[in-house]
């Protein structure tokens, strides 16, 4: 069917207007992805920049190295712990602030402060604050009669969990709080009339309706947690040994300390391929409305 002149004009305009976005996507998403994917199959190192095709050698080297499996294990475990805690705390805070009380605005602002700080800067701040000799936190604990070495091998992983939770709980809180703001109040009224108490309303009314929001928060935080780099790199550089090496730190070290870009790209590609199957599953849940979920 032939297009009318008006329709053709409209189509041309829409193509023209979307060109900048397409150019951006090509330059900063498609090209890096393709280049990275290609590098994963090349002998690309700082010593050999010829970029010759080497099949799956980089992947073989990757799976043979202990470091990759260890860093994957640490990353998955760390992410599972921090995301769980952040979801629970974020939900709790959102419920708490979903009511009016004196000083709410100030409290709200205080809660959001940590996500406004760049992660690397947060790492440097905590490196100073938690230093056993000059840090305020050990001094405070010492004043209370507690002697804790926050950077000792036994306490460094819990410390990293606490710092991640401190920085990213505001993020989950913000998303869930936004969801609660648009929560249909009549549903709660109806459940109250049916005799449901606060806990039952929470489990059977609020949570199902907020399911897409909760999935969105969970998905975004999980993706971000799996990419954790800055704070851990600044504080521990992945050590002692490799005990706090995340996948991002592993990839960074492979590329910029070992100069093995092929292996680093292969590791990044493996992570991407492992994550892709979860995307449609999560997107489906985010896209469904809470009301549908209730039905």
């Amino acid at each position, binding site marked *: 069917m032939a297009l009318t002149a008006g329709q053709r004009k409209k189509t041309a305009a829409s193509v023209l207007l979307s060109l900048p976005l397409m*150019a951006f996507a*090509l*330059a900063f998403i498609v*090209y890096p992805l393709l*280049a990275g994917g290609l590098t994963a199959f090349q002998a*690309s190192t*700082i*010593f050999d*920049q010829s970029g010759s095709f080497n099949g799956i050698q980089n992947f073989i080297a990757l799976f043979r190295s202990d*470091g990759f499996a260890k860093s994957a294990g640490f990353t998955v475990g760390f992410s599972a712990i921090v995301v769980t805690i952040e979801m629970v705390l974020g939900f709790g805070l959102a419920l708490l602030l979903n009511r009016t009380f004196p000083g709410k605005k100030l409290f709200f602002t205080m809660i959001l402060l940590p996500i406004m700080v760049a992660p690397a800067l947060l790492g440097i701040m905590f*490196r100073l604050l938690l*230093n*056993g*000799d*000059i840090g305020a936190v050990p001094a405070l604990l010492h004043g209370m009669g507690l002697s804790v*070495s*926050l*950077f*000792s*091998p036994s306490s*460094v992983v819990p410390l990293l969990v606490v710092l991640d939770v401190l920085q990213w709980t505001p993020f989950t809180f913000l998303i869930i709080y936004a969801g609660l703001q648009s929560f249909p109040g009549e549903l709660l009224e109806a459940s109250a009339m049916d005799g449901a108490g606060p806990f039952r309303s929470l489990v059977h009314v609020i949570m199902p309706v907020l399911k897409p929001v909760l999935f969105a928060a969970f998905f975004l935080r999980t993706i971000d947690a799996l990419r954790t780099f800055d704070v851990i790199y600044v*504080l*521990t*550089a*992945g*050590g*002692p*040994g*490799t*005990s706090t090496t995340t996948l991002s730190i592993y990839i960074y*070290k492979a*590329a*910029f*300390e*070992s*100069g093995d*870009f092929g292996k680093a790209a292969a590791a990044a590609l493996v992570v991407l391929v492992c994550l892709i199957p979860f995307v449609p599953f999560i997107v489906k849940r985010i896209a469904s409305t809470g009301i549908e979920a209730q039905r």
Partner: protein
Amino acid sequence: MRGKRFWAIGATLLTATLLAGCSTSAGGTEGSGTGTVKMVSWPGPEGDAMAKVVAAYNAGQGKKDKVKVDVVLLSRQDTFTKETALMASKSSNMDIYWTASYNVGQYAPSLDPLDGIDTSSYFPVAVDGLKYKSKLYALPLDVSNHFLLYRTDLIEALIKDPVASAEYEKISQSVLGEARAPKDPQSWDLEDFKAMAAYFSKSDNPKSPTEYGTILQAKNLLYNTMIWNDVLWGYGGNWAKDGKANLDSSAAKKAVSLYADIYKNKWTSPDSSQAEFPETQAALQAGSAAFAIQWSAAFASLNDPAQSPQVAGKIGIAPVPGGKTHVHALAVSLNKYSKNKAASKRWLSYLATEGAMSKYAEAGGIPAMPKVLEAKASLNPAFTKVSETIAKNGYAEPVFPKTFEAYSKLAEDLSGAWVGQTPVDDALKTANTDLQELLG
């Protein structure tokens, strides 16, 4: 059909444009010998000193040469990361790279050898550390090594006090299996270092004036491998022997065990598992440790009343116990893909003169030229010590293409054992295997 062709042509043009933007340089050229030279530097005392030398060159000799040097400051932590990315893309954006003894072997494929530069004024160990396959790939700029920095008041009090000396003998008997008298740090060996660490720690000596004897730099960091290497070399060890990895030696085992003993016995702060230069400075400045093996750059600030009010004037400097100190030079190298090599060489030739290095010293740097350090001794009390120690005790680790990675890998393999998290033998076995692989 026409629409499809439009999209295909558009996509091809766009891709070509993008790829052209990301294209790499085919190779460097000599250029006209004049114009602007772009040089990487990093912030901090070395970068500040270099900025003043550059300003002096641009205002004087540079005008005669018709060369202007532009310094591009990158962040201290990411300088080498960004340079690696530039080298990987064969970029000609920078004419001169900021390099160091520990990465010149890795960067050599992207650098031009510096032929015809007179290096006789430099410390030979600094020049050797910048050679790869017998060719010089970088010009030494700032030299770094280690010292034992210690509290003079505490050590003097110990030596003078017979009761304290008797207690030290008792502790050294328990720690070393032999009673030792307290000695001046100038003549300590690594066993004295260990016994002193125990004596000045509350865990072994509740009357100790400091909480911990020392602070180890045990974070998983390549620079900490350099400090541990002093202990390894001090015990007579080395990374390699006859081209083979040699970390299964008894010296290597003693070197790791020394760290592990100090850590497990709480003669260093438990937090030293994440310590590096700043944490060591903080421990000495706060008076919580009596001594530490530390970088040469630390001495001046520890004796500066404004920066270290608690300990200024009480910090002494001595060779590293065991008598060996790692030496590395920060350096500058010529980018193989530079489009202006001739002008860059003019600037590098100027930089290699005693006049330029004197300016560098006056601006706060520690140049790798013994004559300049001696002439400028009044500027920094550490200059004389640096000069003496490097000449007498300095060593450079083997330079091979993967030296930079080796430092990192050893920190990764050994840092767990330094703090007692991994058995010493297991860590050394892994480290030896990894080092052998890197040696090729």
